[in-house]
């Protein structure tokens, strides 16, 4: 089943040169890395897929549904139900407990807060005992796991990860990627990792290079 399909997408920020993105198709369970130097448009493509930037030209489909041409209720619904997000610098909502970080994702997806499901997700990542802690009291690795648990709690079709390994040492980066890839495969979700970290290439079979615009 095709989870993500990108074709003929171009995006132009005001006063800048247009960025062209390579066509790309990801099947369920597939793992791909979106690589390129700073300014190549990695985060821009993630925002376009998530429906948070207005698609100017081209076509993007997530789980068989076309991403709307701009932010809107349909885009919000698609994002909350079909896409899980893992972010680099701001992993979790700091004033909510780990469990609340997961249940807020359920609430925003229009689902009832299911503590059992949320605790299962935390258990799978070995941090169920930290459910009632706030992120500020967790180690970086624990936050990373909680962030992954939140990304998968709604059983999304696609997980988008933005620079998940930046500022991690080799061992931590390997561990985080193993977790992320392992969890997305276990749940049958496609995973797209936007990164400029060359270490990611060791773990990911498919690389979408923005600098060249070709999938290898």
């Amino acid at each position, binding site marked *: 089943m095709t989870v993500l399909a990108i074709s003929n997408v171009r995006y132009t*920020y005001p006063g800048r040169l247009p960025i062209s993105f390579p066509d790309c198709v990801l099947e369920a369970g597939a793992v791909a890395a979106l690589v390129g130097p*700073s*300014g*190549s*448009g*990695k*985060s*821009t493509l993630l*925002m376009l897929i*998530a429906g*948070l*930037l207005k698609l100017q030209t081209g076509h993007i489909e997530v789980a068989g549904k076309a991403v709307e041409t701009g*932010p809107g*209720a349909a885009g*919000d*619904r698609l*994002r*909350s*139900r079909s896409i899980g*997000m893992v*972010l680099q610098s*701001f992993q979790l*909502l*700091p*004033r*909510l407990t780990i469990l*609340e970080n997961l*249940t*807020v*994702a*359920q*609430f*925003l*997806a229009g689902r009832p*807060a299911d503590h059992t499901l949320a605790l299962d997700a935390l258990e799978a990542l070995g941090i169920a005992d930290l459910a009632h802690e706030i992120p500020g009291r967790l180690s970086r690795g624990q936050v990373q796991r909680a962030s992954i648990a*939140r990304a998968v709690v709604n059983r999304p079709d696609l997980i988008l990860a*933005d620079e998940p390994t930046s500022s991690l040492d080799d061992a931590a980066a390997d561990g985080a990627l193993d977790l992320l890839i392992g969890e997305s495969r276990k749940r049958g979700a496609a995973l797209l990792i936007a990164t400029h970290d060359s270490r990611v290439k060791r773990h990911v079979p498919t690389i979408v290079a923005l600098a060249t615009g070709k999938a290898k």
Partner: protein
Amino acid sequence: MNLVSLSLAGLRGNRLTHLLNSVLLGLGLGTITLMLLVSGAIGDRLTRDAHGIDLVVGAKGSPLQLVLSTVFQADIPTGNIPLAELDTLLHNPMIDHGAPLALGDAVKGFRIVGTTPDYLDFYGAKLAQGQIWQQPMDAVLGATVAVRLGLNTGDSFVGAHGVAGNGEMHEGSPYHVTGILAPTGSVVDRLVLTPVESVWLVHEHHHRQDPDAGHDVTAVLLHAKTPLAIVTLPFQINSQTNYQAAVPSIEAARLFSTLGFGLATVRAFAGILIVSAGLGMLIALTTRLRERRRELAMLRLLGATPRQLFVMVVIEALLLAGLGAILGLAFGHLAAWAMEALLPAGDAMTVMDLHARASEWLIPALALGVGLIAAIIPAIAAYRTDVAAALAGSHD
């Protein structure tokens, strides 16, 4: 998890600033609450104490002073009128009934009023124990007086000269308590009632007056037979006699309009406090929102709609405003309680009943209005959160 719990979580940052703004709002609303309680109580008291009294006839002077001193027992009398005048007035065909008042003494702040049983009829006062006075120097106590002075039927007490009771004690003329009135919620609760003759006797002893000299009363309270009499009698009395007739309802309205200026000033002060609190709330929410830009962007990433972020900020403001309303009502009632507890026992003010009033619905309404206005700008900013810019800092 829902939008309210998300809003509560949002308020966990800057707790002290939010709390102080709610306290400031509470102070403004507390002032308004106290004003509602006081003005309501004054209105009630003016209505209750003047009930059935169409006219007051007394010595010339300020009509407001005459009404205040005789109907509301809250000022110094304007003087006296001869007893003979009482008969003339009570037998006037336009008058239904009336009661004389002889003032001059007090006991521990509570006025001693010489009168007739007709005075009790104006207020529908009934005896809770004992009996009405039978002879001079018998006294019937208002419910509050009995409780405050700890007197029972059969007890004796002496009065002091002056309506404030701060003059010389009339040691040689003790009063005997024959009865205690049930509470009426009116001025009667704070009076000591006795036959008019008691007042004359006490002052004859005290001033060694000639017992054969003509007696005076302070005023006469009258109930007219027809509304027309209320209009025509004062005109007649004021133009044809050496006394004056005042209409309590007119004087009460005049008093209320005088008080109204004071209340308007307090209202303006409360308004300034409320506007300051609203601005404080606006600034705190806006500043906090700037700090939470990334959190809001995160919520959008998780699927929150712009409308949900808007509502979340509005709920935050309403929660703060709700706290302000609770504090305001608490401050207002606390101040009313302190006022009742601290004012002198027999003081005119303490006759007021500062109980909760239906008009207090205004307090939460006002608080929520302030909260909504303070929320508009930050809520719009939340609605317009630029996710890409907030998360990336710069475009990649």
